[in-house]
């Protein structure tokens, strides 16, 4: 490090490490939410930088919709195993079996229900702080959220009643039963994430790179064909060169047409793209201008 200059990535990295160490020091029972997606893979590297040679002072937690891309789950398992860290997986299926999630059709998108299983998992383990890989540049509601975002007993976020956050002195105090969501990469943008993946040479699931995939066009979106998504009558299956910019529920995560097959090409595309990350790829965020805000108020991370 002596030989290179202190870049904006170095500044962001140091800030994120500082935040993670504050969580580890001040929270009694924290967890790191880890899905195997690119942002949470960056979070893992930051945790390594923050705590090695020690073990992470928290487990990794995945709230599994079971609407997954197999490549992402494989990466999730491999990274956790390689790091020798504890991975806790809690599934929406368990909540469905318990009857705490009731859905009409198991094949419909499940992101709206993740909050239920997340809150049940928080209660099961007594977590008082959950670190997540959300970024403020993703969405309007996130732009207003604090790095340490306080939640009431129901996991609800009240955007009008947030604690002021000054300098980088974080107030981590909560009452029994309440908890905090912490976003160490709040100040990173999609481009920063890709530059960091490139710089750190991070292993990410192959679906982030351009590949041939069977898709169907529905409205303005391109939807991947999977066990859960089959063409309706009249819809044509096409094979396109695509990549995913975000990875979530397989039934509502749309890829973008792309030929970028390595990190450098993705950085190039990200720097010049004219569509926001969620605008391009998350059908569930487009239902209304305020979808994310509503979901966050309900306890979505």
């Amino acid at each position: 490090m002596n030989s290179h200059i202190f870049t904006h990535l170095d500044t962001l990295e140091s800030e994120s490490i500082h935040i993670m160490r504050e969580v580890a020091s001040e929270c009694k029972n924290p967890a790191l939410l880890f899905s195997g997606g690119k942002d949470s893979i960056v979070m893992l590297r930051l945790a390594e930088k923050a705590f090695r040679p020690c073990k992470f002072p928290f487990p990794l937690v995945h709230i599994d919709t079971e609407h997954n891309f197999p490549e992402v789950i494989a990466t999730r398992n491999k990274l956790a195993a390689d790091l020798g860290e504890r991975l806790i997986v809690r599934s929406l299926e368990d909540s469905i079996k318990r009857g705490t999630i009731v859905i009409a059709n198991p094949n419909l998108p499940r992101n709206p229900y993740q909050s239920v299983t997340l809150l049940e998992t928080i209660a099961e383990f007594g977590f008082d702080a959950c670190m997540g890989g959300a970024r403020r540049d993703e969405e309007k509601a996130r732009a207003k959220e604090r790095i340490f975002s306080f939640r009431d007993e129901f996991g609800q976020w009240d955007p009008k009643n947030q604690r002021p956050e000054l300098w980088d002195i974080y107030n981590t105090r909560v009452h029994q039963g309440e908890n905090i969501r912490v976003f160490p990469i709040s100040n990173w943008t999609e481009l920063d994430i890709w530059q960091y993946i490139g710089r750190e040479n991070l292993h990410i699931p192959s679906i982030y790179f351009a590949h041939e995939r069977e898709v169907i066009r529905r409205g303005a979106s391109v939807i991947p064909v999977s066990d859960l998504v089959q063409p309706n009558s009249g819809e044509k299956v096409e094979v396109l060169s695509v990549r995913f910019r975000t990875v979530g529920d397989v039934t509502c995560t749309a890829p973008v047409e792309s030929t970028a097959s390595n990190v450098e090409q993705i950085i190039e595309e990200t720097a010049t793209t004219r569509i926001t990350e969620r605008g391009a790829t998350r059908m569930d965020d487009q239902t209304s201008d305020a979808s994310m805000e509503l979901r966050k108020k309900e306890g979505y991370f």
Partner: protein
Amino acid sequence: MKNTSQLLRFITAGSVDDGKSTLIGRLLHDSKSIYEDQFLAISKTSEKRGMASVDLSLLTDGLQAEREQGITIDVAYRYFATPKRKFIIGDTPGHEQYTRNMVTAASTANLVIVLVDARRGVMVQTRRHTYLASLVGIPHIVLAVNKMDMVDYSEARYDEICAEYLAFAEQLGLHNITCVPLSALAGDMLVDRGENLNWYQGATLMELLENVEIDHDVNTTDFRYPVQWVCRPQTEDHHDFRGFMGRIEAGEVSVGDEITVLPSGRTSRVREIVTYDGNLQTAYAPQSITIRLTEEIDISRGDMFVKADYLPKVAKEFNAMLCWLSEMPLDKNRKYLVKHTTRTVKCLFASIDYRVNVNTLDQHPNSAVNMNDIVHVTIKVQQPLVVDNYDRNRASGSFIVIDEATNNTVAAGMIA
């Protein structure tokens, strides 16, 4: 290694009518940081509201509640980048709770753009914003004289406003001020120079943002290293490893340096500077590192490593300027918590010396402290804190006050 400061955090200060949202919208738009889907969304809204052209100020509207009411309620952060720098804008609304929101956004800013309307010139709010900027110690100030299109791009009017502002800033002891004329609506002198301000030879607003020198915004001389976390892996590979993790808040440190641990005053030497990417010979603010010492001395979170050349104070009582943030007034009879660097202690307000009228800068001997008040206080703490004057060192001169009953952050403090 040199901090080339590729990341600039700035805020804009101005009333709603000064064109703040339009200015931010214009910076984002002209630097091509607006995405098509965002632009489409605000085009639709502009059309719905019967506007003739796209209202760029809509870009910074955040939450549903605000969109319904047509106001902004809190600090929002925006991101954009040019090939030269990455920018973080702390966007604050220009009305109610202004002091609280501006102080919050200002606390991490390198630079503030103070907006004035060329027709109205320096107003009471302009003075208030500038005072708050000086209170929170924002290192760089840009006076943006906006709406030049409304005064026929008059150079004389611009000169008049700049002269008045600089005279006022001088009274506050502010020096790092640059003035720029512009029209956010027409796009003159923001990213492009435009055709209308040819008499102005200085840099455009974007050029100022891209080039302002901020390497010395952090104190580079007085080493300050609050210990965040002690790493003891107790594994076979690292059975005697004991590392003190933290972030260098100011200055630099090298292997072999003698350090003093405060408040205990014990000394030791730096044996190793450990990072995930390998050991370092020297590390600088604001790097996050792990320090190993040559001697085993008792150290825990909340202690601070310093070097003997410029020592902070170890104080159980100190003066501070306080910005009260809570709707519940300060209660002098109660104990609160102070969080300063990595140490949290109980505190009492020994005296409330005066309140500053942020519009006139007059001092009032007023002991009631309400939300948005700026007061000078004397604070007593239960255990000593390792403090610097805020003017000298932002990181070791700042603190927050927490109400134990509600766990809310109720005040921001700057040690005087």
